[in-house]
């Protein structure tokens, strides 16, 4: 396995919207390497992007000089699950306050958490050691994968 939970891919970006395409490209490639098909890879990329967008807009309130860390790892031997950890250093928000809105209420905004929960198997917010939030997203790998060793 080219990357796993003991040797994750680590990317640190500043909270600049212009950095988001770089993370998306890396996540897309990481998904393809472990065998996700195009549609699922796209939904994982979207979920990570929504998480980063929420951090920039809400945790960092638009400040563009804060760090965000993204880690991609594979759990299990043989490989079973993609785990994405996203850590920010903003104010920790109680998960009970992070809700996706009623989709029948058609208005701009508030869709990011809904997208993450819809696309990923598990979405977990927890307080990060030293402050900030650690978001963990997981997605089970496809049953018959072709991985690059």
């Amino acid at each position, binding site marked *: 396995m080219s990357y796993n939970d003991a040797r994750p891919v680590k990317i640190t970006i500043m909270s600049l*919207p212009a950095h988001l395409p770089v993370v998306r490209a890396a996540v897309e490639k990481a998904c393809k390497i472990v065998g996700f098909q195009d549609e699922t890879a796209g939904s994982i990329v979207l979920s990570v992007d929504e998480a980063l967008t929420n951090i920039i807009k809400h945790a960092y309130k638009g400040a563009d000089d804060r760090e965000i860390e993204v880690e991609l790892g594979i759990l299990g031997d043989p490989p079973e699950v993609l785990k994405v950890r996203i850590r920010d250093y903003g104010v920790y928000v109680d998960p009970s306050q992070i809700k996706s809105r009623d989709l029948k209420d058609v208005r701009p*905004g508030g869709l*990011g958490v*809904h997208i993450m929960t819809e696309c990923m198997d598990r979405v977990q917010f927890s307080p990060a050691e030293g402050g900030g939030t650690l978001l963990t997203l997981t997605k089970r790998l496809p049953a018959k994968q072709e991985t690059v060793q």
Partner: protein
Amino acid sequence: MTANQASNSPIQEVRWAGKAAVVDVVGEIDLNTSNAFQQDLLELLDKSPERIVVNLSGVSYMDSSGVASLVKLLSRIRRTNGSLVLYGLTDRVRGVFEITRLDSVFEIRADEQEALS
């Protein structure tokens, strides 16, 4: 109208077909570009189009901020009894509308001819 060259708006061109404005959009619509995208779309309302047709065939990626810009435009144009039609959605862009259940809220057509009919 041409897209604001000073911004990073993904709007490439606005063409007119009678009282309908056809907006050609290219590239990626995310947090980096959605503000300029929304601003350019809303400014188009000043020209009082009866219909706005958004050509998304050149859009390779859209996140919820891009969708939110279109929701805002839809809300505003409905106030003037105008209509908003989208066409040319790639599978990935269509997927975002489906995940957010907005595919049933927007008029989505296969091509420009259908969008203008």
